[in-house]
């Protein structure tokens, strides 16, 4: 049972533009959500989180939006940089990972 889903396996964006990565979940009991970034041959690293009682959290170029009624969250990266090219995972609580979205930022 996949409780967290990322329906877009890949995304390409021009440098300087906005990247929007989407995530849907089914478990309304999740207390918080996290985004991780993963480069090849490395483990995932934490990027940003949001509590279920908030609808937005911002950290520099990264903003996560949560729409609880739609059970949907999104990660916005503005402006996108080539170094942002990686696989991004969203998670519900600590342990429920989505399948990931591979972001490519084109210089």
């Amino acid at each position, binding site marked *: 049972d996949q409780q967290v889903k990322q329906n877009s396996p890949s995304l390409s964006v021009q440098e300087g533009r906005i990247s929007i990565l989407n995530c849907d979940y089914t478990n309304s009991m999740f207390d918080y959500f996290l985004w991780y970034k993963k480069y090849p041959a490395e483990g995932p690293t934490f990027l940003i989180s949001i509590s279920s009682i908030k609808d937005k959290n911002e950290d520099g170029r990264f903003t996560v939006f949560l729409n609880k009624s739609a059970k949907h969250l999104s990660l916005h990266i503005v402006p996108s940089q080539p170094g942002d090219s990686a696989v991004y995972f969203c998670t519900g609580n600590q*342990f429920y990972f989505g399948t990931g979205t591979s972001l490519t930022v084109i210089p």
Partner: protein
Amino acid sequence: SAVISQKPSRDICQRGTSLTIQCQVDSQVTMMFWYRQQPGQSLTLIATANQGSEATYESGFVIDKFPISRPNLTFSTLTVSNLSPEDSSIYLCSVTIMGTGELFFGEGSRLTVL
């Protein structure tokens, strides 16, 4: 934060053999977690390893196939037994720092079973 080292980083094994993956953390942690990432799939939690007690396995994972040791607060091993090609995956060790909810991961161990 926590720095986690895994060995081996990659290995190629024959069907029917076993592979043991080591995970070393630079600080003492209560819980360590083992994940598997099969090709094109999400990270799936295999088990939680607590020092001084048996590991707790998630649905679909059993101790006979994935025995885990946790001899102290900075080290753990995961063994993948009786290997088959379906076990070809990346195996990741992770820890959490109390109160943060954030997971710290090792670099992963890429296993290929022929």
